């Protein structure tokens, strides 16, 4: 365990972000790190609980948090890395972008500030990279079985690596120009530098995983072919169909879906787009519809592109503000008001705003009509929105980014060719073995459970790998 009574001795400490002025000038990571000595103090706060909720309730991956906390406290970074690496395929990514439900469910969060688990995680893996401990794990035996993984988001990558380490020959098919899926193009550079992904992918490749990018399965490659040439097919396609905002004018130019916008921004950064193709927010008044993380990413990106003004409207009520260090809803992830680093970079946020209409001169967006609403419940208990009379207002805008979530798997030829059953939510149906309705075809991640956290996708990918392995034996 960490230090006995360490949680009473040391205060929680977090590193925070780089200075706003400075960070707005670039796309480099906004987070900072605590020095390693201070991290040891933070690890000392871990109580090594008899029932560690961080590990068993908060973390989907069941990361062995108390074990690596203890190792860090003892200065045994190599052991910390060993334990961390057991449950996570790319902790350097979750250590940067995971919302850290582990910390919300840390036992200390009952009445104190949690252990800074996420920072410790990141420190361990970065230290491991710096010490060259992160080396490919070549399987000791080849199974001779071939697996195709379609889609290279977190679920696909986790599945691919696990399957490869079990000795199978794995090929990952990605329709984009580089692997990573949502990690690469959905998450802006300033939150997750793409070099971090590339560093990990290099390991993947050294382990023998093959990547085929710019390949759209179902079109460039037939589903039938894929199936014939592999012993199992894994579909980790993500859940890419965005939820629309169905108001008049939403088809106008200058109204984009968040993911498209973010993808473009990243591609632009890496010179993969011509300037003509690039939609920039420079000098524009930008409205982000949707108050979630993706929305925040849009805010941060727009600001970096030099937007004149950024608004973010959310239809749901503003959660309660919570000024205390402990979690009022322990061990659940609390529904409290949060702001991401992007919000501090300049943004006007409003809640309970409904978009009534978007319009512009010609096809380009110029203006939106909005009103305030209040939420009630209908007799059956379902939430009901009511416009508040007299609150209607209009806003001049040059660009609208819709970040209202995702609804289902993108319909594609692939799905059709495999004859996959979808469920009522529009995602792929599987059984308890991650097996789809088609023999030998498995699925996991957002494509199965709808858009969710990266850790969840990873966990599913890992779970799927075990089942596919069983299937192949």
């Amino acid at each position, binding site marked *: 365990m960490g230090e006995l009574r360490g949680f009473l001795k040391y205060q929680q400490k977090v590193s925070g972000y780089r200075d706003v002025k400075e960070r707005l000038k670039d796309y480099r990571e906004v987070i900072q790190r605590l020095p390693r000595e201070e991290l040891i103090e933070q690890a000392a706060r871990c109580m090594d609980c008899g029932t560690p909720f961080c590990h068993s309730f908060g973390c989907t991956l069941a990361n062995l948090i108390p074990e690596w906390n203890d190792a860090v406290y003892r200065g*045994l970074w190599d052991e910390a890395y060993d334990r961390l690496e057991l449950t996570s395929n790319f902790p350097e990514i979750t250590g940067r972008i995971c919302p850290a439900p582990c910390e919300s469910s840390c036992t200390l969060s*009952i*009445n104190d500030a949690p252990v800074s688990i996420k920072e410790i995680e990141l420190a361990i893996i970065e230290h491991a990279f710096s010490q060259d401990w992160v080396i490919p794990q070549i399987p000791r035996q080849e199974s001779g079985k071939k697996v195709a993984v379609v889609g290279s988001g977190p679920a696909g990558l986790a599945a691919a690596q696990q399957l490869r380490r079990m000795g199978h020959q794995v090929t990952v098919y990605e329709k984009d120009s580089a692997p990573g899926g949502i990690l690469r193009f959905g998450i802006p550079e300033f939150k997750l530098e793409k070099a971090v992904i590339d560093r990990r992918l290099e390991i993947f490749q050294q382990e023998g995983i093959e990547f085929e990018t710019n390949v759209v399965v179902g079109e460039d490659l037939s589903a039938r072919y894929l199936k014939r040439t592999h012993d199992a097919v894994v579909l980790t396609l993500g859940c890419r169909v965005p939820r629309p905002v169905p108001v008049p004018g939403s088809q106008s130019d200058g109204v984009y879906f968040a993911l498209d916008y973010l993808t473009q921004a990243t591609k632009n950064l890496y010179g993969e787009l011509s300037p003509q193709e690039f939609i920039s927010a420079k000098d524009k008044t930008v409205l982000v519809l949707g108050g979630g993380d993706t929305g925040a990413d849009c805010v941060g990106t727009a600001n970096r592109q030099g937007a004149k003004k950024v608004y973010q409207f959310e239809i749901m009520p503003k959660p309660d503000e919570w000024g205390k260090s402990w979690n009022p809803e322990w061990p659940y992830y609390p529904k409290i008001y949060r702001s991401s680093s992007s919000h501090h970079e300049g943004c006007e946020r409003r809640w309970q705003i409904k978009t009534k209409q978007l319009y512009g001169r010609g096809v380009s967006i110029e203006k939106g009509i909005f009103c305030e609403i209040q939420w009630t419940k209908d007799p059956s208990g379902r939430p009901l929105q009511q416009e508040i009379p007299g609150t209607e207002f209009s806003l001049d805008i040059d660009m609208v980014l819709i970040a209202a979530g995702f609804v289902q798997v993108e319909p594609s030829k692939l799905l059709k060719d495999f004859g996959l059953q979808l469920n009522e939510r529009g995602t792929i149906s599987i059984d308890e073995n991650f097996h789809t309705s088609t023999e030998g075809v498995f699925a996991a991640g957002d494509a199965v459970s709808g858009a969710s956290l990266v850790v969840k996708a990873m966990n599913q990918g890992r779970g799927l790998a075990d089942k596919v392995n069983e299937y192949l034996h």
Partner: protein
Amino acid sequence: MKEHTGLYDRTFEHDACGVGFIANINGDKTHSIIENSIRALINLEHRGAVGGDMKTGDGAGILLQIPDEFLRANLEFELPAAGRYGAGVFFLPSDEKLFTSSTALVEETTAAEGGLFLGWRKVPINRSALGETALQSLPVIQQAFFSFEELQGEVLERKLYILRKCMESAAARAGMDINQFYIPSLSARTMVYKGMFVSTQFTDFYPDVRDKSFKSAIALVHQRYSTNTFPSWSLSQPFRHIAHNGEINTLRRNMNNMRARESSISSPYFGEEISKITPIVNPDTSDSAIFDSVYELLVQGGRDLPHAMMMMVPEAFGTRYHISEDKRAFYEYQAAVMEPWDGPAAIVFTDGIRIGATLDRNGLRPGRYVITKSGQVVLASEAGVVDIPPEDVVEKGRLAPGRMFVVDTEKQRVIKDNALKASVSRRRPYRRWLEKNRIELKGLFGLPHPVDLDKETLSTRQRAFGYSIEDMITIITPMALKGQEPIGSMGNDAALAVLSERPQLLYDYFKQMFAQVTNPPIDAYRESLVMSLMSFVGRERNLLEETPEHCRQLKLAHPILTNDDLHHLRNTYIPDFKGETVSILFPRSEEGGELQKALERVCTEVEQKIDAGCELVILSDRNIEADKIPIPALLAMGAVQQHLVQRGKRHLSGIVVETGEAREVHHFATLVGYGASGVNPYLVFESLVDLKQRGYIPQDLTIEEATENYINAVKKGLLKVMSKMGISTLRSYRGSQMYEALGLNSELMQSYFPATPSRIEGIGLPTIEQETIQRHSSGFRFDEKRLDHLDSGGIYRYRENSTKHRFTPLAIVKLQEAVRNGSYSAFKEYSAEINDIEHNLCSLRGLFNFKQGQSVPVEEVEPAEEIIKRFASAAMSFGSLSQEAHTTIAIAMNRLGAMSNSGEGGEDNQRYSTLENGDTALSKVKQIASGRFGVTGEYLVNAEELQIKMAQGAKPGEGGQLPGYKVNDVIARVRHSTPGVMLISPPPHHDIYSIEDLAQLIYDLKHANPKARVSVKLVSEVGVGTIAAGVAKGKADMVLISSGEGGTGASPLSSLRHAGSYWELGLAETQQTLVKNNLRGNIRVQVDGQLRTGRDLVIAALLGAEEFGFGTVTLVSIGCVLMRQCHLNSCPVGIATQDPELRDRFKGKPEHLMNFMLFLAREVREIMASLGFRRFDEMVGRVDMLNMNKAITHYKAKGLDFSNLLQPSSQLMSRISNQTSSQTSSRASHKPAVPIRCMEQIKPDFSASLDWRLIEEAQSAIEDRQPVLLKAEVRNYNRAIGAMLSSEISRRYGEAGLPEDCITVEMRGSAGQSFGAFLAHGVSFRLEGEANDYFGKGLSGGKLVVRPPEGSKFLAHKNIITGNVNLFGATGGEAYINGTAGERFAVRNSGATAVVEGVGDHGCEYMTGGAVIVLGQTGINFAAGMSGGVAYVLDENQLFDTRCNLEMVDIEQITEKRDEDFLKRYIQRHIEYTGSRHAQDLMQMWDELVPLFVKVMPLDYRSALLKAASEADGESIASTHNSEQIKTAGRS
């Protein structure tokens, strides 16, 4: 005959008793000896018990010299001269045909053996004296007479012995068991009269003994208190040579050894006839009977009477004892010949000429004697059993631990311990023999060299042996760092081994047994000097001879061998000592079955090596490879042990196990428990090097030190395991098999662990093979990196994907959600999660199903408010819990009309008054635990239930301690101790060493609060049912069966996991045994241990529980999140901590707990409705409503069989009555309906209580505080005098009581046990005469004076006047004792001041306050564990420090005037009250004597006082001794 129905097994019956003897030293045969002995028996009646029919005694008997004169007068035929004929007593079958054949058998065998059968005499009996049950099994009692020409003396005795053995064998061949054909005695010297009655029925039943011509010079008597009431005439005592009050804890070991030795015994005394006397022991008899058989063999084989006794019950002879070198050598030599028969014992023995008595090394049974001028010796469990005029007394004494005492009627003198043992131990040159022959390897147990670490393969091997990270970090590391076992807290809710989906080590299927009630656990720390890990390893020789070669064995100081040790044993050449290795690896094969083959191979190889003359066989699992798999070491050991015992070769060689498997204490304990002479845990030693390299072992601790620490930790752990079983020496523990298996099938058990009970079947050899291979393979899988790593373990710390636990994180969250929001739906989610056996099958109850019942509407079911009254919060002390948590629980339970439990930490008397809002924070159940913290008269009267805690589920058989830093001001006040001073709870209650002691405490408590019910808390283990029956017979109102999985504030981890069984089994066994004994109707049954949901509770009710206790779940309701760190004082939710900062974080509310209880009751009602029960009572014991869930397909659970557990009571009863009726005639055709739940509780019997009269006569004092002076005559059956009187006072005046001497009672005679128990302030007892054990128990402010009767001629200060365990748990008051007291004087005293003129062993043990002045000698181990108070001892020969346990105290000179004044003041008072001649002499030489006084000062206490003194401005607090002042200091 093996009686075995349901879970009840006769093997686990226990008994205890009153024993004694009377003898004329000059050998004159008189009838008065008989009369007096029977009177003594009658006066000991309260030490016996009666059964369910209220009349059948557990047995009583007398052994006397053959009443030659009487017999001649009553026989129709002539007898040869006295001493030239043998007389036998026979219990013969009542069935006519069998009777005829058995008499014929006797006569024919006599003829065959060359004897002359002289004739029969039908012994007259009076059937009407018997109870129903005794009558049903009454045998035909006959005497018979034999002669062998001119043979006489020892030769005739031996011939008669052989004759009896031949008759027994013939009877056995004819199919008669000992209930059909039994020979109580056959001798030319002695005769036994005994039977199933209580002592008062004796003379009625046997008219013979009333005849004036019925004479003897000696009489040995015995009165039995048994836990069972199944008639067994043959097992009542005395036996042929002994009567035994006690238990042989190591019987299994002793029997196995005897069986092995039979093959190599020979003796010139027997010659060819030796074959006729085997088998020596009949395993179907009792421990005492078996002891008798072996004792008889030794004596007939030529050993002297005391010699044989010294072999079987050796006193402790460790280096801390001051005994002669020759005697020590004698005992060490004998240790190579035979292991001790270990257990509490007072044994009286005789050969008809000499009669003697001895106590076990711990002195756990009382023995008081008187020698009279007129030449009689009376020895009995109590003083005062026979009237002896004071002027006739020459000496009053007691048997001290390990001491012996013999009356020789031939030499006409009394021979004391020293004289006896000096002559025995110098009969042969034992010391020289030992020096020449004993093998002690040079370098053995030297500092170990660091072992080589093979880092490459370490993880592979660790995984192959099932190591987890927890093994490395949580178990091995702390052992290496601190030299002791790691401590943990809370309960064990991990999945049972047999339900776990992960491969389990075989050890995990074995549960440690432990001593409770019928024999005490030993305090391995404070009383370590009686314990020993020493053993001899090698070849044992002919038991009936003594030669120098007998001790040609290897002496091991302890059984843990380093690699160096083993290397020495393998490679050093020693003549007559050869060690060889047998590999216990087996090959992998596809079809399986290799394990069994390998076991057979190992057994054969071991036997071959032994046959070839090998004295030491090493079973080794070194050099595993991918397809060389280790046999589980315990299995290999069990197989070899069993094989060798069967071949009669076990005693020919030592077996050492060299294994990578063993790492925690339990592993070593089981290996040794199943016969290993030594264990080498080589992989641990290698792991230590790894841990050092990784920094878990710090730089400044060398590997050598770490290894030593680790070994020390194992040694301490072994001592602990042994001590909790009540075993003192490794020699007798080894192979004693004191375990219960859980989840192993009988085929496996029969083959490899035959003496170990396993009651629900389970897996067999094929599954073990599968598990072993699976585990092994995980070490040799390289296909994936994550498999290279040790698993987390998840046993002590929850881990997803590791070991399953019943309390999952989700369950905790849902429960807290439910109780905080008052949400029943969340509660249902909680209970669904806990009950979800699909995903979380952890416990046996998970495998039960309810049978379909005729459901009723839930509205018709008894309301929740009524059901809740059956609920209790489990005992958790204030001290382990914060004040906030403790009172929150009490308030919640009180509001609900349920019960809360004080735990063992006393209770703040401020909680006895009602709070402003009408709440009360008083705990209705007050616990009486071994530490007796704060157990005052006031505490006892403020209770509705008094609960005697015999054991705690988390650590049965162990005590505990509260570290000084947790003892803050409030806790110190409540526990009557000093802030900052450590408090120790001893493993045993020092007033409960046997079942009749428990009955005595129940009796005391009923006097101390006649309105409260008394309950006894037991922990589930095999045999708990029979103990519960004993508890019922002790007249407790309720028995609590606690599960071994229960929680704790602190306990060694191995105890948490491995000691104690589960309530499903313990409860079912209790129910079955109580019903079977027709005792269930008189006692209520409560159950606790990880009870969580309505389903759990209904299952418990159906199995027989009426009431339910909740511990952990209670805490979770008020905020606990199962940190499992209660022992660290760091509870982050303010529950299990005394830290003010953390206590502020407590957020629990009474409403939360109330919600839980209400929800639980609601869920119970729903289940009741579905099963069709309207009233809760209807459900109790309805085991027929349960069955086993056959749908479980779990590969291990499949083999479980609950049929024993689920045996309906009705079926059980009919089976019993069938049995008895087949044995007797059709008399039992009328079968009474036997209750299966409590119908009516037994009213306590206060008829012998003096207090009724005292209360009446003291009315004016009680009501109006007017002084009164009363007088009374007392006898030893007047017990607990003063307790009820005091309750009247405490009820009215609380702790303050009455003004000093307000009620003075002058008494004469021998007072019974617990004289002045809990005596309140203002009551003074002045006793002229003597007192028995437990004098001043729990003294609460009263004053006790005892002095010898007027006219006594003996020197008072040289003679014993009170018994053992005086002033136990006293919290205040004074005692003046004009004479010496027995063992354990003022143990756990926390406030009383006493003056005494001498004390026995272990004086002032665990004392925490008060003052004791000893004006004379003390026994050994004085002040062990003493953390407070002071003692002054007159140390005339300045050797006191050799008898004092100096671990926690310093011995100071009397230099301060304050000390001198204090001494003078109290000695003056002593003179004033008792007229002590000795004290007067002292005062006259005062100035010369002062320098000889020493002051015993506990270190902790001194610093606490200094601290308090400096805080209180140096007031006169340093004058430590006055208890009042100490308390003030404590409160300041």
